């Protein structure tokens, strides 16, 4: 009998405005992780970002990003390196974010992450590829903003996919 491939690991629904959401103790028994976030910021617009780690969050400049986005009719793209995986912009009206972390527990690969992010309120849609330049297995994932807080009611769901 075919196996259902996706298991919900955790869902967090914020009860108060919060600057970060962290999933820790992620088991290594899946092939990929899928993060789905839906919500908004408390004020104006800011960037939604994630960081990864093994037992502790990696805060060094080990994250590489290539993105293409459209915002209110203008396109932009860039390729760069920093100490976050910057996804794109949410505002105080709406935001959605999905990330696939492929082979997250493999210790013979850097971690490739594919992201789609958008905000109807801000008027943007963006696609990203990221690389966490580490062969460590991911067991901690942190969602943060550049300079804002996620509102009460924002949700963050983490899933494991088998392969």
């Amino acid at each position, binding site marked *: 009998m*075919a196996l259902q491939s996706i298991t919900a690991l955790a869902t967090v629904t914020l009860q*108060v405005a919060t600057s970060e959401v962290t*999933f820790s103790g992620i088991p290594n028994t899946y092939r990929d992780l899928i993060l789905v976030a839906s919500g908004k910021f408390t004020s104006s617009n800011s960037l939604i970002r994630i960081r990864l780690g093994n037992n502790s969050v990696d805060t060094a400049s080990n994250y590489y990003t290539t993105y293409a986005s459209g915002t209110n009719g203008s396109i932009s793209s860039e390729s760069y390196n920093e100490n976050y995986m910057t996804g794109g912009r949410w505002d105080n009206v709406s935001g959605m974010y999905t990330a696939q972390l492929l082979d997250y527990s493999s210790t013979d690969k*850097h971690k490739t992450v594919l992201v789609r992010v958008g905000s109807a309120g801000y008027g943007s849609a963006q*696609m990203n*590829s990221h690389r966490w330049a580490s062969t460590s297995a991911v067991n901690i994932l942190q969602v943060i903003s550049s300079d804002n807080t996620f509102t009460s009611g924002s949700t963050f769901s983490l899933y494991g996919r088998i392969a």
Partner: protein
Amino acid sequence: MIKSASQSSLTNNIKYRSMAAGVVPSNEYLIQTSLIQNNTTAFVDFDVSSFAGVYKHLKLVTATRGTSSGTAADEVLITFNGQSSTYYTHRMASSSGSVSSSAFSGNYVSQNPRTSSGTLFFVGAEIDILDPFNPNKNTTVRSLFGGSGSSHNTIVFNSVGWFSTAIITNIRLSAEANYFGQGTRLSLYGVTA
């Protein structure tokens, strides 16, 4: 399984109210995973001849690299029922730091970065094959693929049209040039209606 969430930085000590876990009612099922253990595999076949009537759509999730020397990347191609690339067309929006789009004949769904990117960097792809078992329509494939390596970086949103109403019985993923590199992973899932 263990999950936890960081407490808010606010001083009212309110923790997150809901944390849910478990198998969700999902309509996606694992069919097959190929994990390549050598540097001499040029293609992988997936036999889907028994899945018409079982699944509505198919999905491939891949992490690939190639064995060609140099920078940049080669294509990963998708072929249905052994039919050649002349039966497909392809449109893509892409960025490697600057945005571009293209349209041409072909069956290109992902990339194999070349060896200058090293053995730790893989391009990831999520490839959706829509209505592959419907004899009343051509087959549409959409893929999101990319990676940010040291010698090659890209993000691509892509669609491929296969101009045949034949029910798909075989899917082949192949390296355009040389082989898939060791560690390449190709996973096929079925999605029910």
